[in-house]
Every structure is written in C-alpha cells, then in structure tokens.
C-alpha cells in the first residue's frame, strides 16, 4: 500500500504550524478521506468542516498544495508525488486548524435586495428554458466560497471587505438581474454598495469554481455592462410570445428546444 505524508496546518488565531502525519493511502481516496483517518486515529481534535462528501454542499474548502480545492473532490492519486500540504482558506480569519470564519459571506448575503416578482397568475408563471438557463448556471453555486478566497480584492486587502461583495455575490446579483420575473432595480446598489468596480477581471474566481461557473464571462462582465447601461430593459422577456403546444411525452417535453 502506498504511503503518503500529509502536512496539515494546525493552530488558531494566535498562530500555528504544520503538523506532519504519515499514513497509508488507499485506492480512490480523496484528501478528505485522509483527513478523516487522521481524525479517527492520531488527532481526534483536528478541526475541519465537511457535510456531503460529494461536492454538493461546499463545506470542505481548503488550500491543497496552495490551491483552493474541495477536499472531498480532490483525489489523492491526482496530486503530484511527495508531501501533500493542506492549509485553511487564507482570506478568512482562522477559527481553528482548517476551519475559518466565513461570516463575511453571510453578512454580504443579508445585504442582497430580494427578488421582486409580479403576482403569480393562476396555474403558475410561464418562463422558458432558454430564459431560466442563464440564472440556473449561477444557481449551481454551492457556496464553497473559494472564489471569495482567491479574489485579490479581499485576499490581499482586508479593508475592502466592508464595501466589496465578491464574486460569489456578483453571480447572485447577475442571477437576480437576469431573472425573468424580477422587477427590482439593483444597479445603483451593485455599483455603490457591492463594489463591482473593484473587480479587475483577473478570472481567478472562474479558475477555482468547482461547479465550473463562468463567473467572470457570464456574470461579472455582463453585470458591469448592465450597471453602466441606462438603457437596459430587464423585462424584455415579456414581449415573448407564449405558444402552447400539446405534449406527447415527458421525454419530448424535456429534450425539445424551447420555442
């Protein structure tokens, strides 16, 4: 059985250092499996977050060999030979070991001006797949906060956290602005309160997104254009003709392109 050396950062807000663990590596294991085995044997107090262990909840973000990754989706056998270094996300304050205080993100979430839809007609809203697809890309976000972690605006400048929402919330704003039902206007808010102008489009966020959301191209750049474009009309979709077509099967309904 292969052996692996794990260098795991241990400590708290007052400081810390790397602890080294040598253990076996089993076939198909991910970094989180190895961290769990360290917990279950040598270090039951080794702090890390995790929930789903399937890349769906975004809890186990850490920096593996210096790069933000989900520990549950990083296979050990894909990492280069040699010791594997695991450190907490740098942008957020340390609580303990691999666990950071990510409350910055929840503060930003509380500031988001909510969706404002028109009253729902009898039988539900009508929206077309091609119109919801844009928002659906952003709603794939699992809130791992790795895009926030890697964003230089706050990674290197702590004081920007008071007036900069970060890529996770730019895709949220983009989603709301592109939402077929939304009647709220956040353009001034996004510029003045969320600090969209601070983003200088280095695409670091897009590179680390485990859901492969095109954060910069599909959210931030269009959002920047919309915020400055006074002529943007967010309810253009209303002009779309609604055409009813009797379905023949669920499969048809699913695979046919929207009219």
């Amino acid at each position: 059985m292969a052996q692996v050396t794990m260098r795991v950062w241990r400590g708290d807000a007052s400081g810390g250092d790397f602890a080294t663990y040598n253990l076996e590596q089993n076939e198909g294991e991910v970094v989180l499996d190895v961290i769990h085995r360290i917990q279950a044997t040598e270090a039951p107090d080794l702090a890390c977050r995790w929930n789903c262990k399937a890349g769906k909840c975004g809890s186990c973000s850490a920096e593996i060999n210096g790069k933000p990754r989900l520990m549950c989706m990083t296979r050990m056998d894909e990492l280069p030979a040699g010791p594997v270094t695991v450190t907490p996300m740098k942008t957020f304050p340390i609580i303990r070991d691999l666990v950071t205080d990510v409350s910055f993100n929840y503060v930003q979430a509380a500031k988001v001006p909510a969706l404002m839809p028109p009253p729902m007609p009898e039988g539900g809203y009508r929206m077309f797949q091609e119109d919801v697809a844009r928002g659906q890309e952003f709603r794939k976000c699992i809130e791992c906060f790795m895009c926030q972690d890697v964003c230089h605006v706050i990674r290197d400048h702590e004081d920007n956290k008071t007036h900069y929402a970060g890529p996770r919330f730019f895709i949220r704003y983009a989603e709301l602005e592109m939402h077929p039902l939304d009647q709220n206007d956040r353009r001034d808010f996004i510029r003045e309160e969320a600090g969209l102008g601070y983003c200088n489009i280095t695409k670091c966020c897009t590179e680390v997104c485990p859901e492969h959301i095109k954060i910069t191209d599909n959210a931030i750049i269009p959002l920047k254009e919309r915020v400055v474009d006074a002529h943007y009309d967010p309810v253009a979709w209303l002009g779309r003709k609604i055409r009813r077509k009797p379905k023949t099967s669920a499969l048809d309904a699913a695979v046919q392109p929207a009219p």
Partner: protein
Amino acid sequence: MSEPYEHHEYDVLIIGAGGAGLRAAIEAKQRGLSVGIVTKSLLGKAHTVMAEGGMAAAMGNVYPEDNWMVHFRDTMRGGKYLNNYRMAELHAKEAPDRVWELEQWGALFDRTTDGKILQRDFGGHRYARLAHVGDRTGLELIRTLQQKVVSLGTDVFMECKVLQLVHDAQGRIAGCVGYWRATGEFVTFQAKTVILATGGIGKSWKITSNSWESTGDGHAMALWAGANLIDMECVQFHPTGMVWPLSVRGLLVTESVRGDGGVLRNSLGERFMFNYVPEMFRAETADSEEEGDRWYDDHSAGRRPPELLPRDEVARAINSEVKAGRGSPHGGVFLDIASRRTPEFIRRRLPSMYHQFMELAGVDITREAMEIGPTCHYMMGGVQVDADSQETVVPGLFAAGEVGGGMHGANRLGGNSLSDLVVFGRRAGIGAAEYITSGQAATAFDQGEVDAAVEAALAPLSREGGENPYDIQHDLQEMMQANVGIIRNAEELAEAAIKLDEFTERVKNISVKGPRVYNPGWNLATDLPAMITVSKSVTLGATLRKESRGGHTREDFPNPSPEFGKINFAQSSDGGAWDSPINVVESPILILPDDLKALLEETK
C-alpha cells in the same frame, strides 16, 4: 452552580436548517413571531442540499390527468398503507402550492416547452410528477428557502449543537441548551415553542448516503423529552448508492437515472427487475422490455418498467442478485443509461451524476454502466405528530420533515421528501403560531435540566484514559450494518440489542483530547448518545414487527401480515435520560374515511 450562559429568547425556536426548518421559520416569521434557527452546520449545508431528483407535486404540467388523488394513492401504496393517511392527504393536496411558492421566492425549475414547470418520472409515481432542476433539486430548494429566510431578517445560529430540550415546571417545552462549535461555550434558548427539523439518522450505518449531521438528534431529544417515536423499524435503503471506490461507498446515485431511462442489469447482462415484480404492483408494471421502453415515450402506450418500482422493492432485488452471485466486480449491480440515452441527454439531465462518477470513480456514465448497491438513505419513522399541526404529545414541541413520522408509512417514494419538507414545515410554523396564540406556552425553564446537560457534555473532556469516540462510532456503524441492515432476523436483532447496551456503557467512558474550540472528537462524543438511542429504537421496532413491510424486511417473516398492518409501534422513554429503557405500545393506525379508501381500491 450554573455558569452564566449566553442566553436568547424567541417565540419559535427551530432546530435544524434544512428544508423543513427553513420553511417553518418563514411561516412563523411572516406571522409576526420572533424566530430563531439553530443549525449544527453553516446555513445552506443541511442534508436537503443532497437531494437530487426532484419534489413530487401533482401539478399536472406534463400529464394533465394527474391530480392529488392519484398522488395520495401512490404515496399510500408506496408506504404499504402504514402511513398516517391524513398526512399523505394534506401532502398530496398542498404540494403544488408549495412548489409554486418557491418559484415566487426565486427558484428556477426546469421548464416544459410551453413554459411551465417540467416534471419527471420517478419510482412509484404513476405520472411524471417531480418538479426539478437537473439533478440538483435539493440545492435549489435549500438556496431558495435560505435566501427567503435571510431576506426576512431571521436570526440564524450557525454551527451550534443542541444537546437537550428543556421543560418548564409544568412539563411544557420551554427551550433547549447547546454549545457553539466555534468556541465550545454553552448557550441556552428559551422559547414558547420548539420545532424539531433535524432530519435523519443514517450516520449509525456504515454504508449510508447521509452526512455526519444525520445522527438522529431530534428523534432522540424528542424521545427523551417525552414524545413518542413511531415506525422506527422503517428505514429506507436507497437502491442506488455508489459502491466503488470504497471511500465513496454509499454516496447517492439519483433515482432520476432510472426515471430518465436507465436500467439495472446483473453480471449476466439481464434486466433482472422483471423477475422481482410483487403481486401488489403487477397490474401496473410492464412485463416485457419492449413495453417498458414504450412507456418512457408515452405513458399510455405501456406500463411502467420494473426498475421504477418503489425503492424497497428495488433495493431488495439488488440485494438478492448480489447474494445469488450475479453481482458486479465490487459487490453491486450495473446501472446502465449509457446504452440507452445520448451523451448530450445524459449530461444535460444528470450533470451532477456525470461529474460525480467522472471525478470520484473515473467512470464516464455516458459510455459505461455505473456500479451501484443499496445505501442507508432515509428514516420513514419519527416523532409522532398531529397531521394538521405537527404538534407532538409534549406541549410546545413540534416536529417536521424527516424527523417527523407517519407521512411515508413503511416506505417513502422518491420525490416525496422535498415536498414533505415544505408542506409540513409550513404547517409546523402555523401550528406553533396557533399554540402561542392559545396562551398555554411556557414562560420559564428548568435550570436544573440545563446544568445536567452541560455537566454530561463536559464529562468526556475531564475523563482520563477512556475510549476514543471514533472507535465507538466505527463499531456502532459496523454492527448496525451487519445486524439491523436491509434484511433482518430475530437472532441478529437480539444480538444487536445486547451490543447496544454495551455501546451505552462504552459511551459513558469516552475521553476527549484537546480544547472545546471546534473539536470534532468532542462533537462526536456529544452526538453518540443520540446515535445509540435511535439505534436502540430501530432495533426494538424491528424486533417487534414480525412481518416484512416496506423498508422493513424480516427473512424469518418474509410476508406482510394483516394484523401488523393495522398498527404502528409507538415508543416512549421510561425515565427521560439518554440511557433510559424504551417502552412500546401498539398504536392503531388511523382509519381512512370511505372517500379516501375508495381511491386506494381503484385498480388502475
């Protein structure tokens, strides 16, 4: 000699921030009550996020002939009639409104060609009924509810573990005590009502789709506090969990794979499910591959393929094939969609599954079959509640979602969980509001209960030379998997009961190293009392139910029995401590009114 703990007071305190807890919070908040939500994890990470396939609601968007009566019938048949009929009725009637409500709050479901919410096929549902977003519907549900809760300004206490409910002098629920994971400091909540929305219990099994959180905290705390648990023997083993590599064994593979055309094959390449169609479902199940395949395109052109039987039937069939030596190399069977649908279709409809198999197993599901096997997935049993209000027998205590019992009977249909969360989360919020209005709510709590819970939680930290909690958890999971798994018998259950008493003693001798600050070993030590309590409860129910019904299968009593079909076993704590014995009474199932009974008797 109590420390001055951090203290908060609310009208409604909700324990758990999955779909049910968040929906209950929205309801109570919109009714003008003060609401606090306590969650063991960060907001948005609860197990709801793992739900994949969709939420069942008879909206009739794809098949206009669908309606609540068909959904009710499917739910009762899937549950093998052990269900609380009133919950199944309310659920079927109210689910469509709960789906549309999510859309008003920002959810973006997949669409039909005419712009309505698209609905997909799932096991046990006669019509395509599951509103969904690809195979990440749970994420959409929790994010929508989370964003609504935040926009209402609700207080959310994240990474806070509740240890125990506390009463007032009259025995009413008056709040709870817990600790912050980030600091290890204790905190008390005084509340007029407490809504349990703590989810499931799957972490007591070795092969499970559940996360570390599913330790049965709510089930156990309700039992200790004086509530009843019903149907605890009814644990759902989902037919399709990953089996390889070992590190992901148990991870869920959505039923949508089968709903969208995937089929099960054994090592001989046979679609073996045709050999496992029970009498109860024979009239509505295809008897040839050709007929089953026609059904996918048009439900009036054929009957449903047997891969879409309810989960209990499929899980047992897979178990039998593996036992008969017709399994896959790693001890499962094959789930094949690659040979039946185009790569484009698979990637669009099942993006998470494509990603999950590609990244974790190195398997391209558009080209190869998946290896899958049963995994402990869902707890049908739970706290006995009034169907309309979700109130328990303990004044002021409510329960909703997976922690509640009755809705799903002996087996839950896929897709009925997400809709359960929002239908009964909302009802619990209304129930709590009405209880408060009635003026019976507690106004002070018993400090003695708080101090005792704190003392018990601290004990492992000062104990020297005791056991590592991880060793006990590991042994518990191995034992429950072996003795109280998918197929049970009297001998193994009796052995389980003895072992659980041994685990109880071992838990009393745990030592935890390190500080209280974010210490997972200590967290586990405080989870184990609940894990062992619910394991005992499941074992007890399984021992008493001498028949096979739904998720509960006894090889020594392989058939359903009409007598057992008339009762739920209601369990209660004899003493209220975590290691107190459990009493059981036979609780007659509710008798269906004639109009609902007529729906079940329809043959088609």
